[in-house]
């Protein structure tokens, strides 16, 4: 069983890595979105491995099923073709900087993980949705409300932006 979990972990990690590389490197925006979808599905697999089926399904329902579809809508509105000027490869120093950013973040994270091993590595326990719901409305109520405030602010911002543009026209 433990070997299977490790194999599954490796598989999901590969999917996440490959998907994110495609998302960053693809010339066509829709292919980049497919990479993003693969990454999100891999993350859902990771949730599954952590025995939180609800989180995994929510990840697929919200991020893959809704957010990515909306991103696709945005892509179709922009009409960015692969031969357009945005599709040209960026100058060398930008690529070097991007690589540096990845290496520094990854280096710091892996150094932290390798030098400070986790104290607990038990088999994850499945949290039922009843527990999850009670937790969100009880002890973690404030955080839950704050997240919805963030969503409200972003929605208000979107309305404001659209409003200004309509008046300007």
């Amino acid at each position, binding site marked *: *069983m433990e070997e299977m979990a490790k194999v599954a972990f490796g598989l999901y990690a590969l999917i996440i890595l490959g998907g994110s590389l495609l998302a960053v490197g693809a010339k*066509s925006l*829709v*292919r980049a979105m*497919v990479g993003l*979808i693969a990454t999100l599905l891999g993350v859902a697999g990771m949730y599954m491995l952590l025995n939180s*089926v*609800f989180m995994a*399904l*929510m990840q*697929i*329902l919200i991020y*893959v*099923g*809704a957010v*990515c*579809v*909306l991103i*696709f*809508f945005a892509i*179709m509105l922009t009409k960015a073709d692969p031969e357009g000027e945005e599709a040209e490869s960026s100058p060398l120093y930008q690529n070097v900087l991007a690589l540096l950013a990845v290496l520094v973040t990854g280096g710091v994270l892996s150094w932290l993980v390798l030098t400070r091993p986790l104290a607990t590595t038990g088999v994850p326990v499945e949290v*039922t*949705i009843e527990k999850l719901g009670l937790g969100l409305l009880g002890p973690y109520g404030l955080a839950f409300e704050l997240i919805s405030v963030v969503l409200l602010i972003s929605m208000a911002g979107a309305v404001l932006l659209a409003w200004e543009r309509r008046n300007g026209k």
Partner: protein
Amino acid sequence: MPAEFIRILIGLVAVAISVGLIGLVMVWVERKVAGHIQRRPGPYEVGPSGLLQPLADALKLVGKQLFMPDKADPILFWLAPVLSFLPVLLLFLPLPLGDGLYALDVNLGLLLILAFSGLAVLSLLLGGWASNNKYGLLGAARAVAQSVAYEIPLLLSVLAVSFVAGSLNLAEVVKGQGTWPWNWNIMTQPLAFLIYMVSALGETNRAPFDLPEAESELTAGFHTEYSGMGFGLFFLAEYANMVVVCAVATALFLGGWNGPVLPGPVWFVLKVSLLMLLMVFFRWTYPRVRFDQLLNINWKWLMPLAVLNLLATSFFVKLAQFTEVRW
């Protein structure tokens, strides 16, 4: 543990076979109903009453050459039909045909179906975009606006039922309902049933909401450029999605396998077939709605109604709990 795997494996094989068979039967039913509604016989040459016509059509589809348009995106173009068909196999696994007769016993079965049915839209719009065809792109654009809109009332109406049942496990929801029609959830949640069926038509792109593939405006919408089994997979996935939608409706609202005299699975199949037949009748009796009408129906009627229904349901559920405690 291996027993679980074997169960899922048997389930997958059974689902694959039955999806193929259902596809064949549904094509025949659809063409026959269409024929009789339009006062013509429908297929009748091949086999008794044309029963073998879909089989001949399927063989023809398999034998056809696969074309790809010039300058299409090759990877995404071929990924789309596969992506439309694969999740369908998964959708059937948590459906309870009878007491204990399901492939995957998962607490969140309903959520699993809802989550993976969202992938169908993705495949549809990838196919439409990758074909490098304006009809395909228009079909994809319509599919996005339509499915994002119709998913919300669908989820809200399903949520109302699961509030009453107190579970997201389809088998549990069925067990909460009785043998006779007046014990079924449709009696307590008629509005949710109506909203569910209308949004299900929208989600499965069935007429009168078949705008992504409207053949009289967009030739065939998102699958204009697909030939042979590329088209065949989209087609099969559409029928399979119809079955899933009707099966979920049966389990949630129509008592699932519950029914007098006949054994459970027979009742389940009967109810699902009845709902499918209803969807076919809808297709051939109602004209296609216009796109602004489609969005108006959803955002101005279904959404507010579903929210109100959910609020009322949660109020009454809480009230029932409260009185129970006081008792």
